[in-house]
């Protein structure tokens, strides 16, 4: 059984390689393995699947530059099939049997929580590429993306300020699970410190996969027309609920100029299938947007398009989302740390993290400190355009310091 699965894994990894497979006799001697835990089937497939290819692309870049510490980087791909316990099982296999030097994986917080005990028991390293609710700091996880303090709060600050819309009142609408509830808890604590009264906000949660937003849109409209200043919607619904919400939003004739929406989990893929003309001005916030200015981003976009073409990856060559860039950054950060440490051993690599910097496609210089395993990233606020993409409306001056545990929660 093990043998079969291992062969399968190898097959999958070989199939993902863009170059023709070359039979190398001394397999382990001249390569170092990195494992990917991204689903290529199930509900997360459309989003997570492309991260496998980005990891491979980053590894190809490293190999083209002579590899890491004289060894070629080899990506081992698995398919946890959007099933949370399988992430843990495959993660254990990668660490114990494949002896991978690091894991790259997970999208939802629940899958990360399921892999967490595995990497802690085996003293592995998991590079996690999504922005999330924070409130976690494991020495075995590298948090590549931002906690709320350096993503959500700056975006809300922008909307509350005079550059934004001067938001005074907040309708929080989320899916009913840990991420939206934690984010909203932090937001409420934050607003309380700003002297905003609880009467100025309203919280609603919907089940996963909820699609009938008629009542909630009615509620939002009457909330918005009440007294007390400019209202906004902080949207933390996930998955298929995002386009369903946006459809009802335009259908009821609401415009982003009347009631702006800050969609915290909204990426380009969520706008597929929607006519975004009525949504122009709807906001999101990430550490990278496809329209980020600068030559490094232009190069990355060009490389991705070329990579899709040569590898035949079943994803759009013209769409790049934040978690893709975060995964790419993760592979390079790991390589930098290994080079600095002169070893692939996890404790040595971890010891090398503080002081690392990397110039990533977003245009910012990422950095890590000895305080925690978080990576400092820039903040972008995106505004939906007519072509189902996001324009950069605002971006931070530098990279705010990541604060894992929010003082507001």
């Amino acid at each position, binding site marked *: 059984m093990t043998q079969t699965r291992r062969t399968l894994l190898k097959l999958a990894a070989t199939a993902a390689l863009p170059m023709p497979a070359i039979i190398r006799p001394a397999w382990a001697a001249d390569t170092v393995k990195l494992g990917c835990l991204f689903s290529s089937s199930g509900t997360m497939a459309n989003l997570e699947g492309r991260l496998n290819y980005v990891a491979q692309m980053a590894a190809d870049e490293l190999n083209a530059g002579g590899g890491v510490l004289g060894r070629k980087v080899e990506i081992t791909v698995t398919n946890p099939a959007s099933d949370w316990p399988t992430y843990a099982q495959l993660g254990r296999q990668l660490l114990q049997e494949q002896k991978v030097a690091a894991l790259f994986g997970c999208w939802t917080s629940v899958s990360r929580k399921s892999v967490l005990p595995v990497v802690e028991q085996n003293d592995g390293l998991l590079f996690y590429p999504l922005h999330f609710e924070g409130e976690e700091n494991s020495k075995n996880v590298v948090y590549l993306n931002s906690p709320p303090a350096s993503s959500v709060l700056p975006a809300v600050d922008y909307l509350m300020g005079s550059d934004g819309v001067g938001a005074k009142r907040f309708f929080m609408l989320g899916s009913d699970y840990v991420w939206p509830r934690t984010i909203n808890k932090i937001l409420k604590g934050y607003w309380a410190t700003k002297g905003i009264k609880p009467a100025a906000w309203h919280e609603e949660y919907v089940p996963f996969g909820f*699609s009938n937003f008629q009542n909630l849109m009615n509620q939002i409209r009457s909330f918005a027309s009440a007294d007390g200043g400019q209202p906004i919607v902080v949207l933390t619904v996930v998955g298929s609920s995002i386009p369903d919400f946006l459809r009802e939003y335009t259908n009821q004739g609401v415009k982003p100029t009347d009631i702006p929406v800050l969609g915290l989990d909204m990426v380009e893929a969520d706008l597929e299938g929607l006519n975004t003309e009525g949504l122009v001005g709807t906001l999101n916030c990430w550490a990278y947007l496809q329209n980020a200015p600068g030559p490094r981003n232009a190069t990355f976009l060009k490389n991705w398009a070329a990579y899709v073409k040569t590898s035949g990856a079943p994803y759009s060559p013209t769409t790049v989302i934040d978690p893709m860039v975060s995964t790419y950054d993760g592979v390079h950060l790991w390589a930098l740390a290994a080079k600095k440490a002169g070893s692939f051993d996890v404790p040595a690599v971890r010891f090398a993290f503080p002081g690392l910097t990397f110039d990533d496609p977003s245009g910012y210089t990422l950095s890590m400190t000895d305080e925690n395993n978080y990576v400092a990233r820039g903040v972008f606020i995106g505004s939906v355009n007519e072509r189902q993409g996001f324009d950069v409306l605002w971006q931070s001056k530098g990279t705010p310091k990541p604060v894992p545990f929010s003082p507001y929660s």
Partner: protein
Amino acid sequence: MLSRPVRGIFRVMRGVPLGLLVMQAVLAPACAAERERAAILAQLCAEDGKDVLNGLRDIAEEAPQDAAWGLRVVEAFSAKRLRCAADGGTFLVLPEAMLNARSLLPVQIDDTSLRAPLPSLRARVVLDQTAAALRLFVATRPQTRLDAVATLARHPETLPPGLLDAALVAERNPNVAAALRALAVKSGLHAPEPMRRLAAIASLAADATSGTITELSALRADPSYTADRSIAAALDAALSNARSQVRIGAGLSLLYNGISAGSVLFMSSVGLAIIFGLMGVINLAQGELIMIGAYTTFCVQGLLQALAPAWIDWYPVLAVPVVFVVTAMVGIGIEALVIRHLYRRPLMTLLATWSISLLLTNLVRVAFGTQNLQFLTPSYLTGGMHVIGDFLVTWNHLFAICAAVAAFIAAFALLRLTDLGLFIRAVTQNRAMAGCVGISTRRIDMLAFGFGAGLAGLGGLALSPIYNVNPTMGSGFIIDSFMVVVLGGVGSLAGTALASLGVGLVNVEFEPFYGAVAAKVIALLLIILIIQWRPEGLIAARGRR
């Protein structure tokens, strides 16, 4: 002629410290318009145009030829087609050429070094209003001008004085003129004359929303505004009138939302009502038949776009026969190839139809990809009509309601009024006996299954303006559909209709009070209780089974 643009400049410069430019404009009146344009463009480039657009709107009434220019610039700015050079030059990017933004004449310039200003959300509010104000003077189609009046009516308090009067002077179309006059009355709320205020209050109260209540309550609390007794009395009357309208509107929207949720449920379960309800086949591929219906609709839309673009707006109607036939054929295929052999083995049917559902999902995924499909939504399916209070009748939900009623009538008529319906009922009630009296049971099974599948496909068509259409959409429907069919009573179409309406209403009516999660729990608890009380469902089929 000269004085007008100069006045315009003063308005443009309102709140902007550019007195020097104004001075120059006055000294050299011959090129005043030119300088005015330059100043506006510089403002747009400099600060993403927050205040300058207010001024632009004023130009509309002053100099119509500049209004046309202003509209082009404003539209270009909101479409991000405005480019600013470091030396102050400003350009419009068109697909085929670059224009000098000041003169609108073509220029040759390398656009790589140019900056594209992006309007902020706050600027967009002013931008929309400004564009609407300019369109009143520029647009040739009356409908465009009507839309512009509607846009201006969103924020009547921000209208510059004199704008509506100027537009009324120029307006020739009676409908647009009427809309303008109505807007003029509403915008008189803050006018100094008590008569205008009273008229505005009356007109606002006649067509109130909860926003009206907020606005009027604020005025009622303002002692300087209500110094005049008659205004205070008018406000009181208007407020009580508005409150009752909003209450009625809230009740009606709850009812409407419940009915539309019920009809969505009915459209997704009507096919199953035939296949499971009447034939007793546990078809787990039912959701995929809905999905195929939606994809067929998409293909019809694509074909129409390629072959007969003039008819594209009517694709949801034209697709009805195609979708029905295609999904019915798929259903007949499934029946003939798989289910026919398993009528006596329900457990195996369950497994077989589940694997069919996986097969269909993945076939579609390979053929079309995993992303949501983009439908062209015709204008009669977007937006809605304001009825009373905050109550909107949204067209796409109304479409689903109408489709559900039509599907119910068609299915009911077929089962009750035609020979085929009689045979189907006979076969499902007693297969052996029906065979004995000469009914070809095999053929009836096939036709009934095809009919059920076709109805499921029509469900997909009706739901495509409401739902995300992707290969896995079907799995979302299957549990709710079985729930509704079992609750309604196996074998009863009327029961299915009643159950979907009931579940839809319960879900929606409880939602505003207890939240969407609790509403779902309450609905499920009620279903359990009802099934305990009536194991056969709400309307139990009579006869031996």
